């Protein structure tokens, strides 16, 4: 066992350094003005690029909408004929169905009309009335789709 010499633990030569009591904040690479101007410039440039594309997209949407507008009367004319045909079928069916029922007048509920129609306008009847002689599924199929039976949408 070697002889151990006693060594007193002492401060380094020249003493300890000053105590760091401030918070260590790294220095930014760019100044605040520069950061903000770069951010603004980048945003404006992105907006300009987006807006150029947006104008093109709007033109394309307008073109598609116009295609629909142009064809709309053609489809509407056919749809109105089908609608009236179905109304006619409904009335014939009601005549046939209720012929043995005493006191029943077609188009009325025992003589009382379901719609107040003094001016004799065209009746936009309810969906249930329109599909009265069909299966319930026919109605839900139509009401759930965009080709709704309603005449004026």
């Amino acid at each position: 066992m070697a002889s151990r010499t006693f060594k007193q633990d002492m401060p380094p030569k020249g003493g300890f350094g000053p105590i760091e009591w401030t918070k260590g904040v790294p220095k930014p690479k760019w100044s605040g003005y520069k950061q903000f101007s770069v951010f603004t410039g980048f945003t404006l440039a992105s907006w300009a690029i987006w807006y150029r594309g947006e104008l093109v997209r709007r033109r394309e949407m307008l073109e598609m909408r116009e295609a629909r507008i142009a064809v709309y009367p053609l489809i509407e004319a056919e749809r109105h004929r089908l609608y009236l045909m179905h109304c006619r079928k409904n009335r014939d069916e009601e005549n046939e169905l209720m012929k043995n029922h005493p006191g029943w007048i077609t188009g009325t509920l025992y003589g009382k009309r379901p719609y107040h129609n003094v001016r004799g306008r065209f009746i936009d009847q309810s969906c249930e009335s329109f599909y009265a002689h069909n299966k319930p599924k026919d109605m839900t199929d139509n009401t759930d789709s965009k080709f709704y039976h309603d005449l004026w949408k």
Partner: protein
Amino acid sequence: MSYTNEDYLPSFEELTVPEIQLTSAVLQAGAHQYGKYCDDTNKEFMLCISETKDPRKCLSEGKEVTKCGFEFFGKVKRDCHEEFTKYWKCVDVSGTTMELKGCREFQSIFDNCIKEKLGQDRPPLGYFSKIRVHESKRPKPPPLPHPLPDALPEPPSLDKAPEPNMHPYNPQL
């Protein structure tokens, strides 16, 4: 239960006309040229519908529209069949909404053919979206008569009303 037997509903013979049997891609592809070709007919029909709000009264206009559609697509089939077929087949597969932007090359070929054979330009962008004035020969339908119940009798005039009874205890009142 909405129409009595006295109400006018057109018969099946009036409502049955040959309908255009075309798929959506064909209509989408030919829409702009069709709309320009049948502009007056279509506007007449839509004006009738918006004025009367009655499909029964616009049947003849609607039949004209369908007839005009037959005329236009018949001419296209006769004169520009090949160009149009290429175009609508492209439109058919260009996305879920049948966008026209993917088929510009076929579109220009088709438009040139229409210009050559039918002498019609493609309508400029915004043509159908603008408000367009339509001069119609059909007079504007008058508003339907509105029969009202008889007026109630006039109330009796106050001048001829008898004097009310005097106060029973104070005759000066």
